[in-house]
Structure formats: structure tokens, C-alpha cells
């Protein structure tokens, strides 16, 4: 049937290259940001997070950069592997009622790693 969903930005890279996935967020009051990876038919899987008092955080093969001035977030994946192929979502954690928070997800970027 016709795909009436959102058109996802796509990024295609060669195995071993570095990948950079970008995200613009909307709420300057957001204080916590997360990158999730979603493989087909599965739930979002936590990759890395960063709080608004930081501008860079590194994990294993991944780095998240936060630019609060322009409300921009990026995820860098080093030495991309075929297993990294998935849709990557950034999410803002916005204060909800009381001390509880909800996530607002971005559109997602489809990363395809070519062997």
C-alpha cells in the first residue's frame, strides 16, 4: 500500500567510515537529550545521552555533540559497521507534571551501512 508516513532523511555510508547524524530540537528549555537506535520491528534502544550542562559526551564508538546556541544535536559513529544500520532518533526530555518527564522524538534518520 501507499506509504503515507514521514519521509525519513537517509544516510548511506561505507563500512569503516565515520557517520554523522544531525538533529535540530525545538525547545530551548529541554535539558536532557538522548539518541536512540531503532532496528526494524524493534523498540528504541538507548545509545547515549547528554545533559544541557555539557556540550560533548563520548561512549563506545559514539560521540554526541550539543550546541545549545543553535539547538542542534549530532551523533557521531566511528568506524561504522553493518550492524549499525537502523533508524536513529534524537529525543528531547521535557519536564512534564511534577518531576516526571516525557520524551519528544525527532523524525529519525535511516542509516544504511554498505559492506
Amino acid at each position, binding site marked *: 500500500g501507499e*506509504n*503515507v*508516513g*514521514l519521509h525519513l532523511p537517509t544516510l548511506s555510508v561505507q563500512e569503516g567510515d565515520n557517520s554523522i547524524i544531525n538533529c535540530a530540537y525545538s525547545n530551548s528549555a529541554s*535539558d*536532557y537529550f*538522548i539518541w*536512540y537506535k531503532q532496528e526494524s*520491528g*524493534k*523498540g*528504541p*534502544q*538507548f545509545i547515549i*545521552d547528554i545533559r544541557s550542562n555539557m556540550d560533548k559526551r563520548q561512549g563506545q564508538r559514539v560521540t554526541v555533540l550539543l550546541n545549545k546556541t543553535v539547538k542542534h544535536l549530532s551523533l557521531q559513529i566511528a568506524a561504522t559497521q553493518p550492524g549499525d544500520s537502523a533508524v536513529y*532518533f534524537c*529525543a528531547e*526530555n521535557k*519536564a*512534564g*507534571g*511534577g*518531576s*516526571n*518527564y*516525557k*520524551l*519528544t*522524538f*525527532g*523524525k*529519525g534518520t535511516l542509516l544504511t551501512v554498505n559492506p
Partner: protein
Amino acid sequence: EPEVTQTPSHQVTQMGQEVILRCVPISNHLYFYWYRQILGQKVEFLVSFYNNEISEKSEIFDDQFSVERPDGSNFTLKIRSTKLEDSAMYFCASSETLAGVPDTQYFGPGTRLTVL
């Protein structure tokens, strides 16, 4: 590694029927959430739950939806009278939030709901 689990993985129902989607959050987490993802679209927040009550809900979460923590381990989402447009993946998530500072939300594998 502890994880959020959900059952069933796929639920098919007739329009107008009630469905209950089940989740077992991570055992030491105190905050629970439901999200949904219509095919090809963004993940959308439905509801958050803490201390046996709803903390926040979106405009999607109308009177047809309800949540419950019937015991110490399960967290359920009930849709009273399903509509075609309720067809989606429903994800449960849980988090441990410390002194009001948000913490990571961990997601389950989802339940695919198909309303015919």
C-alpha cells in the same frame, strides 16, 4: 542486563473491541510510560505514570485509554473500544528518576496492534 518486556508481541482485534497491552518494567524503576508509533511515523508520547497515578498524558490519550499497575510488576494499557486508527506499535518504557532529574527511559520491544 535488565530489560522491559511486553506481551503480546502482536495483537489483532476487531474494531470496537477492548484490548489490554501488558508491560513488565525494569524492577527498580519507578516511572512508567506508554508511547506509540504509527507505521513510518515518529514515536509519540501517550502517558506517564508514577506512584499509581498518571503524571501527564497527551491529547492522544483520550477517554478510551487507561493505564493501571495491577500488581508490583505489571503495567498495562487498556483501549476500551478500538478504532482503525489505533493500529500502531505500542511501546512501554520505564525510568529511574533521581530527585527530579530526568533519567534514561528504556523501551520494551513493543506490541504491534492491528485493528480490523
